[in-house]
């Protein structure tokens, strides 16, 4: 066999291995990334969805954050424009998770049958936009 055909064979093996690993990786570790309304719609259609671990990207409803510092439990509500549900989480939240308006979170966890989203991970980003910053400055100047 010519060296170039041997190389082609070796490459094919590597490429197939990469594709296989990627396929398996997606199958085993891929999780739904849903908005609150999508999640609520799916669970009402198919109750087994309560047991599926997934990710939710949503806004925190301002003023709903309750912290219990001694046990590090945090409860709050998230929503998009149409659906809303409470969230419970135990652990340390990042600095960006504050009571300020307009906090967006990406959470991993399950929406339990009790209607509460039990989060295992909470990431937050400050959603304050540039326009909001300008208003801020304007307030300061007046």
């Amino acid at each position, binding site marked *: 066999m010519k060296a170039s055909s041997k190389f082609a064979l070796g490459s094919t093996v590597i490429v197939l291995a*990469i594709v296989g690993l990627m396929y398996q990786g997606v199958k085993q*570790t891929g999780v739904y990334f849903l908005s609150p309304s999508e999640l609520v719609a799916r669970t009402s259609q198919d109750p087994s969805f309560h047991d599926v671990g997934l990710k939710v990207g949503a806004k925190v409803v301002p003023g709903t954050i309750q912290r219990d510092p001694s046990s590090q439990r945090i409860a709050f509500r998230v929503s998009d424009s149409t659906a809303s549900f409470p969230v419970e989480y135990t652990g340390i939240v990042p600095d960006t998770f504050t009571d300020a308006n307009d906090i967006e979170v990406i959470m991993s966890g399950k929406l339990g049958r009790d209607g509460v989203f039990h989060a295992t991970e909470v990431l937050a980003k400050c959603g304050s*936009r540039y326009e909001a910053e300008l208003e801020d400055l304007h307030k300061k100047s007046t």
Partner: protein
Amino acid sequence: MTLLGQFCLWTAFLISIWTAVVSLSSRWKGRPDLGRALTRAPLALALVVWVASVALWKGLFGHDFNIEYVAAYTSSNLPDYYLFSAFWAGQKGSLLFWALVLSTFAAITQLVTSSRYRDLLPYVAGVTSAVLAFFLFVMLFGGANPFERLPFTPPDGRGLNPQLQNPGMVMHPPMLYLGYISITIPFAFAIAALLARKLDTGWIHAIRKWSLLSWLFLSIGITIGMWWAYVELGWGGYWAWDPVENASLLPWLTMTAFLHSVMIQEKRGMLKRWNLGLVIGSFLLSILGTFLTRSGVIASVHSFAQSSVGYLFLGFLLLAGIGGFTLLYTRWPNLEPEAELESLASREAAFLFNNLALVGVAFSVLWGTLFPILSEAVRGTKISVGPPFFNKVNVPLGLLLLALTGVGPLIAWRKTSLPNLRRQFLWPLSTGLLTAAVLVGLGMRDGYALMALGLSGFVVGTVVQEFYRGIRARGRLYQEGPLVGFVRLIGRNRRRYGGYLIHVAIVIYFVGFTGGAFKVTKEATLSVGESVEIESPYGGTYQLTHMGISQYEALNRLVTAASLEVTRNGKSLGRVFSEKRQHIDSFKNPTFQPSTEVGILGGLREDLYVVFAGTVDGTERASFAVTVNPLVWWVWFAGGLLVFGGLITLWPGGPAPVPVPVRTPSAAGQAEQAVPA
């Protein structure tokens, strides 16, 4: 000053459009005056963009809060060095910074490139100017002009996001930008070579230092970014496969592939199309990274301002991609390889597999990063993949790459005989096996970790053998002592031995990453005097005792600091401090959300990493997260070694490259002296 800035942006925009149009339309052919004008245009552009940048810096240092950008990213109590770095803290300033670096690189390119490539230089000026014109276009017409004024003057600015108030953040973005931007130069030469139909190895020689430089900047930028994430973000790690991190890794991977595959083209005249494709691809990936981070199409915890600017980048990406690859396609018949692969036991084959694996990693990272968009487009549901996906795919590929790092230098060009293989592989392989055996003896049972560390031993064995043989050959030839021999060996063949040092640095990164598999975390809420215990993965127990909370005001912030007394197996290690900082403006109003300063008690074996998560009901009772992170220090050390190796390789001077096929195995010191790799 903003007027001057605006004026400069417009001037630069018009000059760059002119340069791009005249150059890329080949109007200058047969017109030496136009050709000269084109190669001088980048100098004028750099000058004008520098004036604009100085104008912005002047506004920042002068606290001219009437300038929107100054008011949005600085405050009057911000330390000077952060005023300096506020230049690239926001999107608008970043774009100007990008233009500044690009115009500077483009000018330097015209100045330092040898006149041997004078057929290419006017085209190079055209490509760099076209890219520059795009950035200026975004600033002038995309709503991202850093010189815009406000209709009112705030008494103080908003200040700089506290997470950016960190020395790492002063360095990380510019380094990464330097890396991204300097890819434009190899890209410009590739396009120039295609346009001029000068498709020999000339363009590759012209950009050798540039491609290495951009690779080095990307490496430094990524490493400093990891360090910043580690000391500033407080989640106990330095790499989370976040889309923004992935975006910086992608061009690094393809440039790594390119640095290796050009050697095949230099030596054997193969892979011409592949190399052009890699450079064009790397450039596109650097633009893609900007698009991903600025458009917000992918959910990332990095909170960049999202804006329509991202879509301008998407448009530019498509334009550059279609243009670049179409041009490559039209020159396809001119790019026939000059040789064929002769044997799988050859350095060419090792490099080919290395390229395949690197591009495979890049592809899987890109796929995983874009998967939410792809799955939504195909199946209507967003599905996201996380760190397990990336680890599952990339750990095996990483091990393959590590193995090839050891194999490449040991194996000869064209083909290697069996006795030769034996002579070359005996010691390195034994070192690798011995490493793994010793670790098993010490009780390590994690399969991947054993393979990673065993292969690390193999690569280090390879490098040591290369140095040993080179020094021994010099000793015989010139009667030199080992130390003198070592220094001269590197000096005579910087690219090769600098490259070996970089290989060792990569191995040390791998060792550091392997340590991450053994990390231990514990959370606890402690009253003053109470302690928490955490086991080190090496054995042994840390005990942390809460000593109390103190509050004080510093420079531009209110600090709440927790201190903990640390012992390891009863032996005192001193105290570790972790802080909550509330930044304030000059009127003592709080700005931004509070931020956490991590307490790290670092060491060669492991870091004790303490995060103060807050006090309980205003008492001194406080919550902590404690992590034991093995071998993290080695990741930063590897970064330093990589820079050192890179500088050796980049150092000016040294013999000119000779593209001659080599038959002797690379390690035969004597023969190799005459033919630098």
